[in-house]
Every structure is written in C-alpha cells, then in structure tokens.
C-alpha cells in the first residue's frame, strides 16, 4: 500500500509554494485535485519562464503539477460553489495560498470549511502570517528572501546582497506545510478531529536560518560577514568555498590549511599553523589558495586531495553532472505523459521499501477532470 493511499486533497493553491506541498503528497500516494478558476486556472500555467513552453504552457507548471487532477470551478458561481462544498465534504485536506482574507470572502475560511466537514485538515501558506505592517503584502519568493536577511549570507563581502537563485522560500514553506498536514492527518487517526495548519514564508525562511540566527541572538546581534573571497558560508573558516582552476571550478569544504599547503605544494600556506587564523585571516588564506589553484586543472588537484581524504569536489553544471555515473545510478529522471506526449522531469527524492516512487501521470490540462469528478462524486 502507498503511504498516503486513500487521502483526498483539494488544492486551491497556485504558483509554487502550495502546489509543491501537494506534489510531494501526491508522490507519496495521495489523490490531489486542483481546483482552478475558469479561463486562466493556476496562474503558473501562463508563467513562461525563459520563453520555454510545453503544450502551450510553462515547463515549470508541468514540473510542479504532475500527478494531479484539475477541476474547474468559479468560487463565486453558486452552482460551482455547491459542487466545491460537496467535494469538501469528502476531502481529507484543503490547501490554499491566497492572501489573508481571500478565502474568507469566498466563504471558504477554516470556520466555513469546518462546518461542512469537521474532520478536514485546512492548510494555508501566506507571506507574513497576516501579522504586523506586512500583513497584506504578497508572499513572493524574492521579496521574502529580501526581508528575511538571507541575502546577506551568499555571495562575497563586496557583492550586493545576493538572493538564492532558486525559489527557496516557496519550496521550504511547501515542505513545512506538508509536514504540518501529515502530522495533523496522523493525529486525526486517533482523535477524529480536523485541524488548521498555517505556515508563512517568512517563518519558513527564519527556520531555514535557525543555526545562524541563534548565533546572532546569542552573540550580541553581530551581523554575518561574508568572506571577501570565494564565500561559501559566512561563519565557516577557510578554505570553505568554490575555487577557479585552470579548467573549471572545484569546491573545498572544511580542512586543515597547513595540510592543504603540504598536499598542494603551496608553501605560502604553511605558516598558518594556528587554526584560529583560518577564520580570522580567511580572506588572505583564500586569496593565496585561489592563486595557487589557478595553475592546475580541477582533476589534477582532486587526484591529490581525494586520496588524502580532504573534503573536495568538482563543480558541475547540468551538462557535466548528467554525464556522471554517480548521477545516472540515482535514476532521478522520469517520463510523464501529457495528452499522449512525453515530458522528462525529475521524481520524488524519497524511496519507500526499496522502491523509487514514480508516476507517469503528467500535469492536467485546465479542467481536464471536471466532468469525471462530477460523475464520480455525484456533484
């Protein structure tokens, strides 16, 4: 049996945060029905990134919404609203990521839903938890990164604040929401009660920074200082970072500077015998190391460092990564089908009972399952 077999999720959410939560739940066996409004549906369908489309829709929509169904409904239309009510009656989980107030106006707040189905788990994501001066602001990934302090952790000291180039706030909030939903589903097995789960993107980014924020709280509010050279982590000593070599890049994690100097035959490093200098003089040390590593190829350096158990790696882009045997054995790719056409994407990263979790079901076209669902649930 799949982990989440027989769990029915109605997903009103759009873009990435909520839909990434329901994707993971679908991967683990839940049935996910997207409730989409007429004409546009999930706005992500029309979000053309880097001018790439599949079947007239954005590739990222297809990546995020595979293995789901689509039900078309206008929440403001009384007939459609009645259908939604009937679906809510039989659903286990309701997800949305509207700004605070929207679902209240649609008469689908937690209190409304609880009256329809007291056992429902009602889960929502927003930007700022509806609190304080930003309570009505949109939950947008870059903007959340900007206010959360996280942009002062990546990039070098003299760079502008540097956002992480993946929608990390959306994905983490989705991850945390799925955790809350699953905990509530588990508790419901014994209590028979529904629950309200709320996650804000700001809280998710704060949790992501929990180690370094705790350091800040207890260290007289000293702000993080990125290293000026090849910054990898504001709080970690040299050599931690990514280095240019004669033919590409390599990463060096924590390591003994003197030993590195010996192995790499870089005499200038041998005088840094006091480990506290590895942090205090990290810019100086990293500059020396960068100068030295530029004179050889990444493979050459790794062939010296790897046998000596130094923590290092080659830096890959996707072209390079996907040629590696170590990537291929993961079988991270899968084909999904959309109107008979196949699309290559990634799979769920979790293996259960020795099996990879796959599903060939592609993202639904807008309203693809409306009439089937009407029949099935007698709406």
């Amino acid at each position, binding site marked *: *049996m*799949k*982990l*989440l077999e027989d769990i029915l999720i109605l997903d009103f959410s759009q873009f*990435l945060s909520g839909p990434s939560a329901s994707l993971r739940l679908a991967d683990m066996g839940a049935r996910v029905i997207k409730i989409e409004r007429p004409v546009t549906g999930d706005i992500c369908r029309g979000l053309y990134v880097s*001018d790439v489309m599949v079947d007239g829709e954005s*590739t*990222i929509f297809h*990546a995020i919404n595979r293995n789901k169904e689509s039900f078309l409904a206008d929440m403001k239309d009384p007939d459609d609203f009645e259908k939604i009510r009937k679906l809510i009656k039989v659903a286990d989980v309701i997800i949305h990521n509207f700004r605070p107030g929207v679902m209240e106006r649609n008469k689908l707040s937690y209190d409304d839903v609880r009256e329809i189905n007291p056992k429902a788990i009602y889960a929502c994501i927003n930007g*700022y*938890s509806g609190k304080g001066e*930003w309570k009505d602001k949109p939950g947008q*990934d870059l*903007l959340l*990164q*900007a*206010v*959360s*302090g996280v*942009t*002062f952790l*990546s*990039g070098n000291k003299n760079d502008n604040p*540097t956002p*992480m*180039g993946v929608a*990390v706030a959306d994905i983490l909030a989705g991850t*945390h929401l799925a*955790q809350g939903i*699953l*905990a509530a589903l*588990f*508790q419901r*097995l014994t209590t028979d009660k529904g629950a*309200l789960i709320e996650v*804000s993107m*700001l809280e998710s980014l*704060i*949790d*992501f920074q929990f180690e*370094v*924020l*705790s*350091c800040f709280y207890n260290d007289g509010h000293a*702000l*993080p200082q990125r290293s000026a050279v090849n*910054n990898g*982590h504001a709080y970690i000593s040299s050599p931690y970072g*990514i280095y*240019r070599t004669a033919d590409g890049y390599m*990463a060096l994690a924590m390591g003994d500077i003197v030993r590195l100097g010996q192995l790499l035959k870089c005499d200038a490093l041998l005088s840094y015998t006091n480990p506290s200098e590895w942090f205090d003089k990290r810019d100086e040390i990293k500059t020396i190391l960068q100068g030295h590593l530029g004179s050889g190829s990444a493979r050459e350096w790794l062939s010296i460092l790897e046998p000596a158990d130094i*923590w290092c790696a*080659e830096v890959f882009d996707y072209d390079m990564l996907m040629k590696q045997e*170590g990537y291929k*054995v*993961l079988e991270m790719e899968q084909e999904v089908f959309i109107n008979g056409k196949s*699309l290559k994407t990634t799979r769920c*990263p*979790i*293996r259960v009972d020795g099996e990879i979790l796959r599903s060939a079901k592609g993202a639904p076209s807008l309203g693809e399952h409306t009439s089937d669902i009407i029949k099935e649930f007698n709406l």
Partner: protein
Amino acid sequence: MPMELPLKGITVLEFSQYLSGPCAGLRLADLGARVIKIERPGKGDPARQLSIKNLWADESSLLFHTINRNKESVVANLKSPDDLLFVRQLIAKADVMTHNFRPGVMDAINLDYSSVKEINPNIIYTEISGYGKNGPWRHKPGQDLLIQAMSGLTYSTGNKNSNPVPFGLAIVDYLCGNQAVQAILAALIRRHKTNQGAFLELSLLESVLDFQFEFITTYFQTGQLHQRSETSNGHSLLSAPYGIYKTEDGYVAVAMMPIEKLNVVLQNEDLRTFAEKEAFEKRDEIKAILSQCFLSATTDTWLQKMHAHDLWVMPVLDWEQLMQTSTYQELKIEQEIAVGNKKIKTTRCPISYNKEYFLSSRSAPRLGEHTEKIKRELLKEKV
C-alpha cells in the same frame, strides 16, 4: 490547556549526527515525539564540538544546542556487545529510527534495515546517505558544500560572470532532513492503518536535485544550460526586472512586473524602447538601465512610489532591521531555553497548529544524560 501534540507517544531513536538527520529529529520532537539520540562514548555527536564564532552553551556548542534541543541522549558503544544488546532492546520498543552513517556502517553492526526488521517488524527505518548506496560516489563524504557543487545548484546564484556561487547555508542537509520528516510522518500514517513498518531511503544529492526540479525540467526541454543575468540576478529563468538593486541608501528587491508598469514610476526614456516580450531576452540591457535608475533615490522613496502602484517590491533587510518590524515581533518566533543557569535564545518550529505554536523550553541533553534513566525504564517494563 496546552495542546495535545500530534506525535505524542511516538519514540524516535536518532543515530544521526551533524545536521541532516538531527534537524529531522528536532522537527519530530517539536511535533511531540520523544527523540532519543544514541551517541558514542567520549565525544558523542561530533556537532557537540562544532562551534560557530566559538559560541558554547555548556560543554557543547551553541550550534549543537540549536539543532538538538528537546531531545534525550543515551550513550552506547555500538562496537560493544553489551551496549548493542541495550540498543537492540531500545529498537524493539521504538517507532522510528534515523541514521546518516556512510553506506555499510550499520550493516557491519547488524543494525541495517533487514536486521532491525527482525527485532521490530513495524519500525520506520530512515536512512540518509550522501549519494545513494550504489555508484562511484557512495563513499564520498556527504558534505553540504560539496553536494551543492556537484548538483549544479551553484550555477543558479550570483551573476553571469561570477564564479559558481553556493548558497551560504547548509541547504542540502536542511532539505534532506525536512524531506525525511515528510516521509516518516507519511509512514506513520500507513502504519497506523496497516501495522506495516517502512524502509525510507533519502540522499543529500537526490534532495537537492528535487529542489532544482523547475530548472532541471526546463533543461530537459531545451537542452540548454540556464544563464544567470549579468547584474542583479534573482532567478535565472525569469525576465527583467527580477532582482536586487542598489538605491541611494540601501537596496530594494524588485519581483515580477511588466516593464511598462514599472516605468510608470521610473519614467525612464531608455526603458520605453523595450517591449514586454523582450523582457527575458534583453534582460541584461534592461537591468543595466534599472541599476542606474534605482541609484537616484532612497529605498523608502522607491517603496512608497512603487507600492502606490501595487508593484511587488520590498526593502532588503539584515536581521537587525528585520527584528525592528512589527511583523517580526508579532510572529513571536524566538524562544528561550535554559541550559544550566544560562539562558540561550533560539527560534521555534515554523508551523502553526490550530492557531498555536509548538514551543519547548527543554534544552539539548548532556552527553549520555538519560542513559541510566532509560535503562531503568527498560528494566521496569520487563518486570
């Protein structure tokens, strides 16, 4: 009345060290599980000795305390037959166990899944590796920066002409631990219905590949590597203006918006020549103009003007500035933990449950703090 915690009555044995497994244990503890760290004699979890900025809570680092609050600690030498017997007794009673040793370590002491299943067929056994158990990288260290570097992630951040830029946080460990929590919770649900245990396998590399699913799927369609923009790169797949811009006195973050709408505020002649459909292709030119434009006024001025037109912008804040906002203050995200007679401050679980927060003031355990107590509990149950 305090809330009934969802994982009340669930026991988790944490053989994991450092961050990936332990951050999963922390979440499960906050959700109500009893989490017992199984640590080796002498040093225990090596994170105890790993400090940042030389900050210590007691004999263990503040970092360790941040990751391991709300847990118990048992000391066991997994190479000693007596201790192994004790650990096997614990396993027989546990609901969940996690480990993040390199492949082969648990097999060598007969604590791999197939051996453990014989002691406890219903257990949810969770294993975190660096690169999976097969293939040429299986013995490489599962270290966060290295996996960021190998996974392609470092080509998402920074500008086009910079080196590959890693995320300045342990994103890989953190993601993998959080995904493990999802899998464990889902497996607990199935077990409640069917009495069936589960074997859950995750790897750091698969976790961070999943994280890049939008980029990788787009790459599969185009066969082209994505390119960071020359300046103000925010997301390599998105059009101008998406990014962070320097102002007269700070920085603003500017999300998606039609160029024409943005120019209602900026009133820039050069910007007028770009059509919306060029916003991706010509983003470097557009961003270069914007970089100049935003320098001409203060962050507050831009925010006021742009918010008046409902444009998606926010200031770029450091933690000190964030903490001054009413939003941060109303979130009550901080909690205090007593460690001996010292108090440390950390963050709470980010999930809110029926309008309540999961709070816990219990500190991380001293090494082996609960060994005797837990041995006594086991004895009592036998009698």
